C-alpha cells in the first residue's frame, strides 16, 4: 500500500462527504416550511407588525433559517465543521447530535449482534455444506437460500412476532420501553435487553446466516480445487486441519468483502424491523423525524449514516489490502 494512494483515497472520501452533505442539505430544503409561521401562525391581538416580524425573525435565527439559502448552507457547513448538527424541532429542542447519541447504541445492539451471528453461523454452515457437497446438508442450504433471498426480512419478522410472540408468548413482540429508560449496567438490565432483542435479531439473522453460508460454500469449493489442498491431503493432514487450516483461510477474502459491505449498512439497515418491534433506534428516530417534518434531525441522521458508511468503506479497503498481500491498492499491474 503506497502512502500516496492512502492520501488520495482519504482526500476522495472527504470530497464525497462534502457532496453528500450538500445533497442532504438541499434535498429536504425543497419542502422545508418556515418554522416561524409554524410556531407563530397568527399575530396575537395588540401586537404591532414590527414586533411580530421581530419575533418571527428570532425564531428563524434560533433554527438557523434566517438569510438566503446559500447563507444558511455556509452556516450549516461551519457548524458541521465544529461537530454541531443543529437543533431538532422536537419539543424542548434537543440537539440533533444528542438525539443520535441516544438512539445509536440501541441500533448497534441489534445490528452488531445480527452481523456477528450471521458471520459465525454462516461460516460454520457454509464450510459444512462445502465439505458435504451434494449431500443433504448442501441441498438444505441451497433450498434455504432460494427461499430466504426472496423473503423480505420484515415479513419474516412479522411471522416470528406472530408465532413466537403472540401465539407461544416466548419472546416479547413489542419492546418494553422501560428497558430504555431504566437502563443501568446491571445484569438484569442487560438480560432484559437481550430478551427483547431476540426476535428482531433473529428475524434479520435468518437471511444473513444463509447468505454468508452460501458465499462461504462457494468460496470454499473454489479454493478446494487448488493444488495446495491436494498437497495438504497427500501429506496426510487430518480433515479438520485441511478445512480450517488451509481451505477456509484462503476462502475468507470474498467473505471479508461481504462483511465490509454489511458494516457500512449497520446503522441504516434496520428501519423497518425497528418499526415492527417498536425498537428505540435510529430507524425509529428517522421515521418520527419524517412524520414530524423535523428536517434538521433528518438531515443530521442521513449525514451521520453516510459518514459512517464512508469511514467503514475506507477501513474495509485498507484492511483488505493488509489481509491479502496480492491486492495492491493503487498500483498498476
Amino acid at each position: 500500500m503506497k502512502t500516496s494512494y492512502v492520501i488520495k483515497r482519504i482526500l476522495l472520501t472527504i470530497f464525497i462527504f462534502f457532496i453528500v452533505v450538500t445533497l442532504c442539505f438541499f434535498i429536504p430544503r425543497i419542502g422545508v416550511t418556515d418554522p416561524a409561521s409554524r410556531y407563530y401562525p397568527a399575530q396575537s391581538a395588540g401586537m404591532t407588525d414590527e414586533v411580530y416580524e421581530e419575533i418571527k425573525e428570532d425564531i428563524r435565527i434560533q433554527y438557523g433559517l434566517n438569510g438566503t439559502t446559500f447563507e444558511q448552507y455556509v452556516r450549516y457547513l461551519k457548524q458541521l465543521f465544529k461537530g454541531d448538527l443543529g437543533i431538532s424541532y422536537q419539543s424542548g429542542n434537543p440537539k440533533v447530535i444528542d438525539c443520535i447519541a441516544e438512539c445509536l447504541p440501541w441500533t448497534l445492539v441489534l445490528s452488531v449482534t445480527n452481523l456477528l451471528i450471521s458471520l459465525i453461523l454462516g461460516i460454520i454452515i457454509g464450510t459444512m455444506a462445502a465439505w458435504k457437497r451434494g449431500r443433504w446438508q448442501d441441498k438444505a442450504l441451497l433450498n434455504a437460500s432460494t427461499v430466504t433471498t426472496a423473503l423480505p426480512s420484515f415479513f419474516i419478522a412479522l411471522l416470528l412476532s406472530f408465532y413466537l410472540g403472540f401465539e407461544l408468548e416466548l419472546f416479547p413482540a413489542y419492546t418494553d420501553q422501560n428497558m430504555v429508560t431504566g437502563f443501568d449496567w446491571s445484569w438484569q438490565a442487560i438480560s432484559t435487553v437481550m430478551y427483547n432483542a431476540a426476535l428482531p435479531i433473529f428475524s434479520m439473522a435468518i437471511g444473513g446466516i444463509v447468505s454468508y453460508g452460501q458465499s462461504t460454500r462457494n468460496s470454499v469449493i473454489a479454493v478446494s480445487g487448488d493444488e495446495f489442498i491436494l498437497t495438504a491431503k497427500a501429506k496426510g493432514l487430518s480433515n479438520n486441519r485441511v478445512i480450517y487450516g488451509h481451505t477456509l483461510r484462503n476462502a475468507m477474502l470474498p467473505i471479508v468483502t461481504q462483511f465490509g459491505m454489511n458494516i457500512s449498512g449497520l446503522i441504516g439497515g434496520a428501519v423497518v424491523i425497528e418499526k415492527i418491534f417498536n425498537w428505540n433506534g435510529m430507524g425509529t428516530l428517522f421515521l418520527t423525524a419524517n412524520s414530524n417534518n423535523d428536517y434538521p434531525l433528518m438531515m443530521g441522521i442521513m449525514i451521520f449514516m453516510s459518514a459512517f458508511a464512508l469511514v467503514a468503506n475506507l477501513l474495509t479497503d485498507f484492511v483488505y489490502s493488509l489481509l491479502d498481500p496480492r491486492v495492491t491498492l493503487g498500483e498498476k499491474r
Partner: protein
Amino acid sequence: MKTIQGQDQEFATKILSVLKKIGITCLRILEGIWSFIKKLWKHKQGRVGLIIVALLVFCAVFAPIIAPYNPYDVTQRAEKGLSPSWDHLLGTSITTGQDIFSMLIYGARSSLSIGLITGLVIAVLGSLLGIAAGYIGGWVDTIIMRIVDILLVIPTLPLVIVMTNVLGTSYAVIVLVFAAFGWTGLARVIRSQVMLIKNANYVKAAELIGASKWYIMWRHILPAVSNLLIMSTALTSAGIMVAEAGLSFLGLGNPEAVSWGKMLADAQSSGAMLFGHWWSILAPGIGIFLAVFSFMRIGLAMEEILNPRMRKGSSMVKVFKHLNNKYLEEVFASMDDGSKLKGEYATCSINETPEGREMLACGEYAPSEEVAVTANGEESKRKEDDESA
C-alpha cells in the same frame, strides 16, 4: 400510384423505408424476447419463474374479472375482521372490511407495475451510463463513477423516505426516486463488462474502419451486454419490489392504492396478531414472496444460461489431465442430476476463475459446448467440435 410524382414519391419512399426499419426493429425485439423465453423454458428454475410471473401478470391484468369484490368500491365492503369462509376466501380486513383475497389480487397490480417499470427505467439509465463510462472512459468515466460512489454511500431507504416526503407519494415519484438511486449497481456491472468487450477484435475492427463511437456503442457494445442487461433487470426488479413493499409497509407508499406492503402494515397495526388472524399476514406476505421469488428465479436462471464461464475454453482440457479418477467420481457424484455418468463418458466443464478452479455441469445447460472426457483423463471432443474446428 401514378398521382404521386417527384418529391411526393421520394417522400413516400422515405417514410416507407423508415416504417420498414421500425417494423424490423420491433420484430427483432419480439424475436429476442421470444428466444429469451424459449431459453428460459428449457431451464428448470427459469420455467418455474416464468410460470409464476405469467400467473401474477394474469392476476394483475384481469384483476376486476378474477377478484370477487372490488376493494376500491366502498359499497362492497363487508363486516370487519371476518374469518375465511366461502364468501370471503381469506376473510376481511380488520380496519375496513375489505375482502383480503380481492386485495391480494389487486395488490399484484401496484407491485408488478412499480417493479417492472422501475426495472426498465433502471435498465435504460444503467446501460446508458455504464456503456458511456466503460467505452468512452476518461473524464466521462470519472464523473459517472464518482456519482456512483456518492449514491452508494447515502443510505437508500432514508433517502427515498425524504424524497417521498418532499415530492409526494404518487406512483411516478416512487418510480423516479427508485430509478434515480437504483441504477448504480447495474452501471457498475455493465461498465466492467464493456471494458472487457472494448478490446475485442471486432470492436477494434469497427474503430479502424472509422465507425463513430455512437455507432459502435449502439451496434456492437449494446448487443454484447444485452443478455447481462436482461438478467440484471430481472434481479433489480425483484429488489425494487421488496423495497416498494417496505416503503408501503412504513405507510409511505401511495396511500390510495391497494398494495401488499400496506396490507401487511394494516394487519399489524390493527392487531391482526392479537386476534390470531394469521391469514391477513400470510396472504400479502406470500404475494410479495411469489413476485420476488419468480423474478429472482428468472434472473438467476439467465445468469446460469449466460455465464461465460460455462462455455468451452482452451484451458478446460488441460486441467483435466491433472485430475485422477477418484476426484472425478467425487465431483460427478456431487453434481446435479442433469449430468449423469454415461457409460465411461461424463460431461462436464472446468473453468479457471480468479478464485480457483471450478467444475460445472453443463450437460443440461449448453449441450453443444460440452467437452466429453473419459474417466481415465483422456480428452475426446464431441463431433460438433470437430466439425467446427
